[in-house]
Each structure stands twice: as structure tokens, then as C-alpha cells.
């Protein structure tokens, strides 16, 4: 896996910045003029009530949606338009709110698939599956086994993921994202639908990924306890507008945030 502090962006500097981004679907404005940044090495939470535009924001960052306005700068490079596979190329990995694994494949194959971009042996060698192609396959299998050990999913390697319980599916999905050795890992509700033990496990994995591999993480989460414990900085969205940005403690005290979550008397 990648050592902390890649050569391109130093720890603590801005890895990704979102400036004045707006996204609308027809007449519906999902995001209006949101700006924030994600620093290298931090855990950044994006929170907000339902329909606040959190997932849309992630979709903008990794290229599923093209914003109508605004600039996204990743590793110092501003971009106008980007396809998801370009984002993957650039080092952005992602997990989904509702698990998006390759259901017909085993856990091992799912995580191996995460290394697609790192594998380069051409069709000729793939057809033979000997020599360089096999060397490459084994080399990447080593890396994948490290991730499997890290996530403690050794015993389900060979199980088709469709048969796994939800919590383990989430873990395999995290493993697939980690296999990409991303610079920026986007987690869309990694703990949705989990019980307290599973949440604790997942939180531990997220912290470990951040510490051990130095991966910058942006996560959406509804469990405030988890958000406050994990994240270094929090950005709060409501109705597509940024209403607060700061450390968890600052955000918790913010009146706009409290109003957004609890509602205000009209």
C-alpha cells in the first residue's frame, strides 16, 4: 500500500478543494454554491439531514455527476469534466450507501477487481495466463491478501459476496476500495444499518486505514456519535447549501446546524 505522504501533496495541505459547486437536475437544485476543502491525511465528515445533497456531493467529486458551476481541484489540478474512471485513475476510491459489490463474484475476486488499474499485462499474456500475467496476478494477490488480513475476512475469501451478511459485504466493499490504494477514499454511510458492535469494528477499520496507510477519508454518516469521534473536520450541508464547516466541537455548537437537525419554530 502507499506510504503516508505521497510525493505530490504533503500531509496537512489541501488535497481536494471544491469551489462554488452547483448541481441541478432540471429545476431541482441539489447543490448550490458549496465550497470546502479536504486536507491530506485527515478524516473529513460530510453531514446533513436527508436530501441535503451529501451523496450528490460525493458523486460530483468522483465524476458521476458533472456540476453546472464551480471548480474542483484535486492534487493541485483543477478540472472541468471528469469521468468516474478518470477519478479512479487519479486516486479516488469510493464505497456506496447501498452496497455495490459485484454480487456474482467471490470476496477475493471483488477485491482483486479493485486492483484492475494496477494490472497492465495485455490480452496476449492474459490468454496464456502463464509467465508475466501469472507473476502479476500473484504479486497482486499478495497485496490483496494483506488487505484481507487487515480487514479480518480471511474465512470468507471464497464466498460469493451475495451470500455474505450485510456487515461483511460492507467490509468487502471497503476492501475493494482499499485495493485501489487511493489517495482519497470516499465512504458513503459506511455504518448504515449496522448494530453497535459492527459500527465499532468499522470505525476501528476507518481509523486504522487513516493511520496505517495515511489515506485521506471523506465520509458521510448519520450517526453523530461516530462522526464526532472519527472526524477531524466536519462540513454540514442542508438543502444543498453549506451551513457550517469546522471541527466537530465547533459544528455541534453552531445554531444553524441545530436548527437544521431539530427544526425551527416558524
Amino acid at each position, binding site marked *: 500500500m502507499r506510504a503516508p505522504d505521497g510525493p505530490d501533496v504533503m500531509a496537512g495541505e489541501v488535497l481536494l478543494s471544491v469551489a462554488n459547486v452547483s448541481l441541478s437536475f432540471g429545476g431541482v437544485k441539489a447543490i448550490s454554491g458549496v465550497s470546502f476543502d479536504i486536507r491530506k491525511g485527515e478524516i473529513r465528515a460530510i453531514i446533513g439531514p436527508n436530501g441535503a445533497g451529501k451523496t450528490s456531493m460525493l458523486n460530483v467529486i468522483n465524476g458521476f455527476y458533472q456540476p453546472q458551476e464551480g471548480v474542483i481541484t484535486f492534487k493541485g489540478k483543477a478540472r472541468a469534466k471528469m*469521468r468516474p474512471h478518470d477519478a479512479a485513475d487519479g486516486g479516488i476510491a469510493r464505497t456506496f450507501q447501498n452496497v455495490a*459489490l459485484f*454480487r456474482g*463474484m467471490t470476496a477475493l475476486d471483488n477485491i482483486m477487481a479493485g486492483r*484492475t488499474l494496477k494490472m497492465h499485462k495485455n490480452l496476449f499474456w492474459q490468454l496464456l495466463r502463464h509467465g508475466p500475467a501469472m507473476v502479476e496476478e*500473484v504479486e497482486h494477490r499478495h497485496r490483496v491478501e494483506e488487505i484481507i488480513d487487515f480487514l479480518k475476512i480471511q474465512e470468507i475469501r471464497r464466498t460469493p459476496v451475495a451470500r455474505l451478511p450485510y456487515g461483511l459485504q460492507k467490509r468487502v466493499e471497503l476492501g475493494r476500495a482499499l485495493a485501489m490504494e487511493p489517495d482519497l477514499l470516499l465512504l458513503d454511510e459506511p455504518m448504515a444499518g449496522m448494530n453497535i458492535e459492527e459500527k465499532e469494528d468499522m470505525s476501528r477499520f476507518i481509523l486504522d486505514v487513516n493511520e496505517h496507510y495515511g489515506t485521506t477519508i471523506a465520509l458521510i454518516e448519520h450517526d453523530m456519535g461516530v462522526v464526532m469521534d472519527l472526524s477531524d473536520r466536519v462540513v454540514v450541508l442542508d438543502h444543498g447549501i453549506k451551513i457550517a464547516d469546522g471541527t466537530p466541537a465547533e459544528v455541534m455548537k453552531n445554531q444553524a446546524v441545530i436548527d437544521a437537525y431539530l427544526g425551527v419554530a416558524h
Partner: protein
Amino acid sequence: MLYREAGQFKSSYTADMAVFPILQDRIGLGIVLFIAVVIIPYFGSSFLIQAIMIPFLIFSLASIGLNLLTGYTGLLSLGTGAFMGVGAYACYKLTTYFPGVNIIVWILASGFFSAAVGVVFGLPSLRIKGFYLAVATLAAQFFLSWCFIRQPWFYNYNTSGAIEVPTRALFGIPVTGATSSFTTRYFVVLGIVIVMTWLASNLVHGRIGRMWMAVRDMDLAAELIGIRLLQTKLLAFAISSFYSGVAGALLVFMWYGSAEPSVFDVNLSFFILFMVIIGGLGSLTGSFFGAALIFILPIVLRYIPPKLGIPIQSATVDHIQYMVIGALIVIFLIAEPAGLARLWQIGKQKLRVWPFPY
């Protein structure tokens, strides 16, 4: 009891990632190959080899081709028949213009023509999928059928409108045409099918196979891990059509001997699609099972009543055969929608834990 992998420890990832990691599977494969390569050619009757084995192998190859596209990449195609036709006609034209070149070279080369045509008709797959893609490939089927019927250049302006396979020899032994022996043709077909099955199996167990399955299972997530959808789908179309093309060329050159354009109509596409679905989507072994069930079973059924001494007219046998096959397909699909390959897996699992139920 005999089929058990207990005690077979893998000490390297290479061994762990082998296509057949279990010893008994490798022995089984060896036995099957031994029967195909030694027993059948030396002890098989001309009927067995000519009317059963050669077409069975060719249809298996076509099923593998379609399975790569439909079973592994999740792209439904109804153009297989046409792609097979492209292979057959390409081979015919090539051997007409360059009669001196080894016919096996041309059979394999015709796959490239089919692959090119497949890629062109695969272009819509970026935008449409499922049934809509099936309809788009149906367009390929009708357009190509029209070409084979209405464009005399394809059949060398023969008055019959059919293509006749010329005699072509390899090292002095006739391989195609009326004078070639069925054993020679069997060996050619068997060799090509073994090699191409091996290549397909390598492909689906490696990076490209995982990319295909990723696109099949969840294209959004596939794009997110860096897979370029268009290239991956077109590669699947190219390789699948290559297999279809070679199968089509073999069908005409090694089995029929001559072919009218109607051979490659939409019925053939459905025929191959049934083999893939019944055999098991996403299984190469299943492709062979599917071809066996759809192609060999009717032949076997036809010979059961006379062997039992039941006097039935052959026309009645034909009708009964359709009914039995139809019923069997329905029963198989209800019992196991994932196809014969899944039944095979379940059977192996039962053997593994025998005599315990689980």
C-alpha cells in the same frame, strides 16, 4: 468419498489460483480428454464422430463464445447466428482468393472478421442493455442475413446461392471437402475447441474476466474502480464474435460441407442462446453441458423407441422429441435456473461431504 480436497494444501498463490485446484478435477479432466482424443477416434463409429461429436464440439465452441458475452459480461445478444455466418463466409472468401494457404489458418483468421463485425454491432452496448441490446443485436442478425442472401459476391455468384466447401489438404491429407475423412475433421475440430476453451478459461480467470464480471454485476461500481465500460464491452463483443466466427467457419467447413444462408438465421442465434442459458450463464463447463443437452439429447431420443422395439413412425418420433426436449428445458429451468453448471456444482458439493448431508 473419492471426491474430497481434504489434505490438498496449497503452498503458493500460483497453485491456489489454478483453474482446477483440486486433484480429482484434474484427473477427471484428464479422463475426459483421453476419451475425446484416444477412445472416440479409435473406437467411435462414423455416426458418433460425424453426426454427434463434430457438431457437438462446434456448438460448444459457439456457446462458449456467447457465454463470454452474455454470461460473463452480461450483454444479451441475438446476433450469434449472424456472427457465425460472418466467420463462415469470411473463411469461404479467403480460401477462394488464397487457395494455397492452410485452411486451418483461414478458419482461425475468419474469426477476426467476425470480431470486427461484432465490435461494430457492439457499439450500441454502451448506451443500451438488457432486452434493448438484444433487439439491437437482432438488427445485426437481420442485416447480415440479408447480406448473405442478397449480395452474390459473398457466395461467389453461385447459381444455387449456397457456399460449397472446396477440398483443401494439409500436408497432403484432405481436411475439408468430400474426400476428407471424418477422423481428420474430428481431430481438427477437437484441437481447435480444446485450445480455444483453454484460452477462454485463462481469460475469464484473470484480470479481463474480472473486468467483464464487474461490468455484468454492477457497471457503476466497475466504472468507479477504473474500468472503462466501452472498451471492456467492445472487447467482450470482439472475443465473443471471434469464437462465434471460428465456430461458424467450422460448422460449414467441417460439418455441413456446404451451406445456404438460411443456416445462419435467427434460429441458430436462439439455438446457441438456449444452450448458454440451459448450460449455465457464466460457466465454460456449462457451455458444453448446454450444447450436449440441446444438440445430443434429441438424437439420442430419436433412437430410443426403435431400440426398445416400439413401432412408431419417424414423423411421430420427431414430434415427441420436440415435446420431450421442450418439457425438459422447462423442468431444468424450474429446478435450477442457474443451469446445468450449477447442478454440476451442487453434485460435486454433495460428493464432497458424502455420506453426510452437509
